[in-house]
């Protein structure tokens, strides 16, 4: 228990934890001081936005409440006239260097700047003058950057450097010319950016966003393609938030209903492909484990993570599983087995993957992931873009009935597939199947709890028919780095390591709905610290309620192997379901004219 101190807000006493900032302490007393650069517990290191100013008795000037620690007897006034005016001026000055095109901005509805401007009562065009030169980078397939909307809060820099341990984004130049971006103001494709999208989750404006791929889908509709959509596990745990549902609501059935109403030819659950991935990956693991080839084996489902290892640890690529991610397996199976059995022309199919991930937009374009010169996946939409698609189509979310995803030759799925969306889930699902392959018995109990929880690094040991298998699970690249360094130094004691690019796994992917407390008045004030656990619980509950919870028992998967692939790791499975990696990715390649962002 932290020591308590008494502070006074507008002369009323409140008991708060010592060590908090005024802003955090005030939150526990029921005050939300407007702010734009604060996003974690009193770690706001920059105090850059100057919006959260308050009056503190004895201080000569107004103080930024996010960076001022509370002490006993502190007398604070939020409603002090000078503080109210200063907060408004701060926002008005930010707006003076902002390009007003809110109607056409995709962030509209989720824009913290617009909301805070409303809260502080900012007056339109209070200050008019020069505007900083702007850069628009729409080249990278995953993330786009538009500095005309940037308010230099620095949250993306912290997300990239601290959360992910990478540090692609930084402040450049000085004073009025300052911008935030990759070095030399390059496009994300010309720097070692993994396109995880964690920066897009914290950006308070539309300066950093996912690449908009809805136009690609529109083109497929225009060209009368047979559009086959499939949805990743983590989407069901968050799509409801786009329509005002409480965080932690399971939306699987409404999601299926929405997709049926969007005019797709088929809407499948990508859990099916997750099951397929597990069967392939568990088989691969056993083969590697018994032959003592590079240990540990690293999972390969997360495209942000694949980018990371290719850029920063290319010498460890032999450790990577060669399995494609579920998204790519799903596409590959639809454009082979499914199309052939149903006599559909492969080139008439457009596969649309709906995922919580911005890096998957990049992944679909990887040259290593083509089969017979066809892309496995044609369009990748994030959870947020799906939300936009549903809104645009006039579908009323709350009126949607419960429906099931399609089942047509493929589509059946298990509880093992659904937990793919959370850190530890791939490992747990793989162990269930690996146990069966090695012992011909089923693992009991089916849940393996050491895999669960949101810790950055988890480790466990499991005994399978007398052999001990040491496993580790990590999410977020700063945690992956710890394990990768151990492997490099030869001190790694694990046999099998699951890595997910985003902290907490796909439930917290870069394409998931924003969690901005200012837009979530009905959630707990500490929602920023609890939302990952709530979303994870959705997936674990769905797993618990599934009649089949082991990937190898999925009847559609069994049929796929019996009738088509023959066995896990067969030559055809290798061709369709496995891939290779690039160990020669240049971190800072020379910039060419068509990979240079537009500056004006």
């Amino acid at each position, binding site marked *: 228990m932290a020591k308590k101190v008494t502070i006074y807000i507008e002369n009323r006493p409140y008991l708060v934890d010592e060590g908090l900032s005024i802003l955090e302490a005030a939150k526990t007393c029921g005050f939300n001081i407007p702010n734009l650069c604060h996003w974690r517990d009193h770690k706001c290191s920059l105090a850059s936005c100057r919006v959260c100013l308050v009056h503190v008795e004895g201080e000569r000037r107004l103080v930024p409440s996010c960076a001022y620690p509370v002490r006993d007897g502190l007398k604070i006034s939020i409603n002090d006239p000078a503080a109210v005016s200063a907060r408004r001026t701060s926002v008005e000055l930010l707006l003076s260097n902002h390009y007003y095109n809110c109607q056409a901005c995709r962030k509209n509805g989720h824009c913290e700047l617009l909301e805070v401007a409303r809260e502080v009562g900012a007056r339109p065009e209070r200050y008019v003058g020069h505007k900083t030169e702007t850069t628009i980078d729409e080249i990278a397939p995953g993330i786009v950057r538009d500095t005309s909307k940037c308010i230099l809060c620095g949250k993306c*820099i912290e997300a990239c*450097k601290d959360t992910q341990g*990478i*540090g*692609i*984004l*930084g*402040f*450049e*130049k*000085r004073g009025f010319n300052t911008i935030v971006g*990759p*070095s*030399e103001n390059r496009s994300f494709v010309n*720097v070692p950016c993994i396109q995880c999208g964690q920066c897009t989750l914290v950006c308070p404006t539309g300066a950093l966003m996912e690449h908009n791929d809805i136009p690609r889908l529109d083109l497929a509709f225009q060209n009368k393609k047979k559009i086959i959509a499939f949805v990743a596990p983590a989407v069901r745990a968050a799509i409801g938030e786009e329509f005002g549902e409480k965080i932690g609501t399971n939306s699987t059935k409404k999601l299926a209903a929405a997709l049926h109403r969007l005019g797709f030819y088929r809407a499948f659950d990508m859990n099916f492909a997750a099951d397929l991935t597990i069967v392939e990956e568990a088989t691969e693991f056993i083969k590697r484990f018994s032959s003592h080839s590079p240990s540990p084996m690293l999972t390969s489902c997360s495209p942000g993570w694949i980018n990371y290892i290719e850029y920063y640890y290319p010498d460890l690529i032999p450790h990577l599983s060669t399995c494609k991610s579920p998204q790519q397996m799903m596409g590959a199976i639809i454009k082979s087995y499914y199309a052939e059995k149903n006599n559909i022309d492969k080139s008439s199919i457009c596969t649309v993957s709906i995922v919580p991930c911005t890096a998957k937009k990049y992944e679909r374009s990887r040259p290593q992931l083509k089969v017979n010169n066809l892309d496995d996946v044609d369009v990748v939409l994030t959870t947020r873009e799906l939300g936009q698609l549903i809104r645009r189509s006039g579908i009323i979310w709350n009126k949607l009935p419960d429906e099931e995803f399609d089942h047509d030759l493929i589509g059946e799925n298990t509880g093992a597939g659904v937990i793919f969306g959370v850190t530890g889930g791939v490992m747990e699902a793989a162990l269930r199947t690996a146990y069966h392959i090695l012992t011909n018995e089923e693992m009991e109990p089916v849940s393996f709890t050491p895999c669960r929880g949101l810790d950055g690094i988890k480790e466990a040991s499991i005994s399978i028919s007398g052999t001990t298998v040491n496993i580790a699970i990590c999410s977020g690249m700063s945690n992956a780095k710890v394990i990768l360094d151990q492997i490099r130094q030869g001190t790694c004691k694990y046999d099998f390591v699951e890595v997910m690019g985003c902290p907490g796994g796909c439930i917290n992917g870069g394409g998931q709905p924003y969690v901005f407390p200012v837009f979530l008045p009905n959630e707990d004030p500490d929602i920023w610290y609890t939302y990952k656990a709530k979303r994870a619980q959705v997936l674990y509950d769905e797993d618990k309620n599934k009649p089949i919870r082991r990937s190898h028992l999925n009847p559609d998967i069994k049929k796929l192997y019996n009738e088509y692939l023959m066995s896990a790791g067969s030559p055809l499975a290798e061709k369709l379901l496995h891939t290779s990696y690039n160990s020669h990715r240049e*971190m*800072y390649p*020379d910039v060419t004219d068509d990979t240079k962002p537009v500056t004006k």
Partner: protein
Amino acid sequence: MQLRKEAIDIILNICDRYKNEPSPLMLILSDVQKEYGYIPLEVQEIISAKINVPVSDIYGVVTFYNFFSLVPKGKYVIGVCIGTACYVKGGQNVLDKFGELLKIKEGQTTEDGLFSLDGLRCLGACGIAPAVSINGKVFPKVTLQDVPKIIEEYRRLDKEGE
């Protein structure tokens, strides 16, 4: 662009000089600027890997301070003071005159690599305003008529192999 082995060695040596410093970045950049002449992205990458600081941080520092340069500086670096006193005494006009005659803007280098032109913020020599500093040598009370003479002087020095 690939750096030569000797160039990489220079930079790594500089990094080693400050390996016991708690925050060596500024010291390293300062020495690299002096000894290597400029700090392009390729050099920043080497420093980044060596001292484990993201390239974006280093790039931010290099573009923040005027002292650091992303492009090579000329043989003679002309610094024209446009601090308050020199500005009032016509420092900006002197700077513009240098720019006009050398056909470069502030912060740029002539094509022959002979001259770079910088605006400085106070040399601490306000009594002799407007002041110009070239490779450490200070010229007092510079007039517009002096500017072509100064340039000629350094062109001559260069020809004589100074």
